[in-house]
């Protein structure tokens, strides 16, 4: 009897999860400083337990989308002026980033943002700041994170500021995982890292997704890698979603190949294009 009840509960939970995405962004518009319109009606969904990629070039609005979701936008003089965002069925517009962390939504910001003068381990510990857990529980949690990031265990007493870029990215993700999130927002984890390190980090992210069941919204310029690891993708351009679909379909799409994977009928985009692109990023 009890078994069947339990499975019925499980079944309804499963149905609910299938119907209701863990995150739903509905037609949002974002304005910075009251005048700069950056997002013009962005909608996207992240189903429970999936990895969804948000792709696009410089200034497309990826970070802005993530910050709207985590409400970190507020401290940058930005505001969601239209549309709504729901996390686990609850509107987030009146919530603070801290409250959302409590509900299980954590953003890993672009550029890693480790606490440079804290050790790697202290950085991880701060991730559990908002949770009230005992010392021994904290130890267990740390070990759980070290199991995913063995490198961090080796580097645990180094100041985060002196660790490598890849290690800093791991610290940032590990720190977010210490909050025991339901969902992670990852902003360009591949930024400035060698392809090998990028692959290592994405493998870990997939591991976290599969073993911890954490849903992931991943903002990336590195379309190639992101589509390899994601289930679904959205392509953002000038604050609008231009295209979306299952990751495999996007990766095979002719236009995506041409514009985002640097491949076209004439072969790769010329190096010069890419260079001027970089230069622009530095000065703007």
């Amino acid at each position: 009897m009890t078994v069947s009840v339990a499975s019925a509960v499980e079944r309804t939970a499963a149905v609910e999860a299938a119907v209701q995405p863990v995150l739903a962004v509905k037609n949002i518009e974002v304005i910075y400083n009251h005048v700069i319109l950056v997002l013009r009606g962005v909608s996207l969904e992240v189903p429970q337990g999936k990895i969804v990629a948000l792709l696009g070039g410089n200034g497309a609005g990826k970070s802005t989308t993530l910050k709207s979701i985590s409400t970190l936008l507020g401290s940058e003089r930005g505001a969601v002026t239209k549309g709504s965002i729901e996390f686990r069925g609850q509107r987030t517009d009146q919530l603070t980033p801290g409250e959302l962390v409590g509900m299980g939504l954590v953003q890993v910001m672009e550029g890693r943002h480790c606490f440079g003068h804290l050790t790697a381990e202290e950085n991880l510990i701060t991730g559990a700041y908002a949770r009230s857990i005992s010392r021994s529980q904290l130890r267990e949690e740390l070990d759980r994170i070290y199991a995913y990031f063995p490198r961090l265990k080796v580097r645990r007493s180094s100041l985060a500021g002196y660790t490598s870029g890849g290690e800093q990215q791991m610290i940032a993700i590990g720190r977010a995982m210490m909050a025991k999130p339901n969902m992670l927002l990852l902003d360009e984890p591949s930024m400035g890292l060698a392809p090998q390190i990028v692959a290592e980090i994405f493998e870990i992210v997939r591991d976290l997704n599969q073993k911890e069941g954490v849903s992931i919204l991943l903002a990336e310029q590195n379309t190639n890698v992101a589509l390899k690891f994601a289930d679904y993708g959205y392509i953002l351009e000038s604050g609008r979603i231009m295209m979306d679909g299952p990751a495999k379909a996007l990766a095979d799409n002719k236009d995506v190949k041409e514009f985002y994977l640097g491949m076209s009928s004439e072969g790769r985009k010329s190096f010069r294009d890419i260079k001027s692109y970089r230069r622009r990023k530095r000065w703007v």
Partner: protein
Amino acid sequence: MLDFWFFLEVLVGGLLSGTMYALVALGFVLIYKASSVFNFAQGAMVFFAVLSFVGFMELGLPFWAALPVTVGLMILVGMGTERFVLRPLVNQSEDTLLMATIGLAFVIEGVAQLAWGVDVRRLDLGIRDEPINWVMDKTGMLVSQLDVTAAAVAGIMVAALALLFSHTKVGRGLRAVADDHAAALSIGIPLKHIWMLVWATAGVVALVAGMLWGARSGVQFALVWVALKALPVLIIGGFTSVPGVILAGLIVGAVEKLGEVFIGPFFGGGIEGWAPYMLAVLFLLIRPEGLFGEKIIRRV
């Protein structure tokens, strides 16, 4: 010939008063580290704190009751400042915040005098500003009891804060906030609690500093200017470094007294007032980040 014992006496006197500069500077550093605000009102808080303490004693409270009451009051003042002055200005420029604390300084000074009057008061901590006998017998040096006690209290205060920062959860949170506000926010460290804690701590530090200074030179409006003494200490030590300002406090204290006694006569005296500023200017020229001014760790 330079008398060794006399030199040492002057040096010790300087170092001892230096600990108190360090204590005042520490109040600034705490707030600056956590919220990038240069708290112009720190001097006013020192004045307000000790004036209130003396005021409570005049109302008939014994020392051991007046102390916790004033501590409580300063915690309230610190938290209130954070809540009603700085939090509404969050995300504003550092200049705006500085202006706000300048305004705050006048308000606190005004309230202090309204509440407690403008008379100069004595604060008797039961310790005389007299030489310690056995030191005098052994070495001939005149080392004030009051100075030694004050230095010890300042030292304990600093050590307690250092422990708080390195070994407690809030301490870790505070260092995280000092390093990167946005990141702290993103993982749910409650910035507001941390800021309140910092302002409350600065309030208590102000009280201790005020009591030590007040016991020496009377409780009077001039205490507000103690904060100006802290300025060269901050420049030399670096605005964000706790060990830096402690060392800088000692240096400033020593330079001031040694300069006054040994170099002063060549200029007709009065060097004590400006020697620290000269030193600070020198530092600005050769080492603008201060002694241990926090190295900005940046790896790309």
